[in-house]
């Protein structure tokens, strides 16, 4: 939950007494300073989770770009790592668009419609692809 002291300067210009936000019933926020900019900062937390995930994909991809050419001795093996890094950049940007599409979130009740989950499916597919690639690499070291 939002800290009671999340008052002045807590975000987005919603200073004390900023009770005029449409869609937020009076007293919906916590603390005496008025409603929080967005209760629980849920969309922000979700965008940060997307950024962590994009950074994890980028880190694994860059490791791949370092590892694969060294293991197999040809520059073409840079490609998977570079593609993965590009995908990580795409995830970062697409998550920002997703974030923008569903803010602000009202204090309770339905907000903007949940966007479709194509980006989640893509992220899962990237995870599976990285796993299969890693499996192929480890097995190839033993044959």
């Amino acid at each position: 939950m939002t800290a009671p002291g999340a008052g002045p300067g807590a975000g987005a210009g919603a200073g004390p007494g900023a009770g005029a936000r449409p869609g937020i019933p009076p007293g919906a926020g916590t603390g005496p300073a008025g409603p929080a900019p967005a209760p629980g900062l849920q969309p922000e937390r979700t965008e940060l989770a997307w950024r962590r995930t994009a950074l994890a994909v980028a880190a694994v991809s860059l490791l791949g770009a370092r590892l694969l050419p060294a293991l197999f001795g040809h520059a073409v093996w840079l490609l998977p790592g570079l593609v993965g890094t590009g995908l990580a950049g795409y995830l970062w940007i697409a998550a920002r668009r997703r974030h923008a599409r569903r803010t602000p979130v009202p204090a309770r009740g339905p907000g903007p419609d949940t966007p479709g989950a194509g980006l989640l499916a893509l992220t899962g597919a990237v995870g599976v692809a990285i796993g299969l690639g890693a499996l192929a690499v480890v097995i190839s070291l033993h044959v």
Partner: protein
Amino acid sequence: MSEVAGAGRRFPGSVFRVGSEPDARFSLANERTFLAWIRTSLALVAGGVALETLGLDMQPGLRLAASIVLIVSGTLLPLIAWAWWMRIERALRSGSPLPATIVGVVLAGVVAVVGVLVLLGVLLR
């Protein structure tokens, strides 16, 4: 962009045809949980690759076994996470109780098995 599209046009239809728009915060939390599983999957795969490529002084068979267990579980996890995200989102949209899961317990078991393999691999080198 299909942001104003009808409910049936959002992917996956098997989720968005069910029920009505849930509380956005619960939907957002479901999404963060999915992403956390994806990062867990990446960590498992990275750990498995590291075991085999860092040239660690371990019994080779056990090292390979630990590596394969890590990578295979890391490869399956995104599929499980996606199926799980869909189940939760459907439950949120239809207002039904959230299902229980044993994924966490199973994963804990897998990591424990990897720990035992690594320990034996170090002791028996």
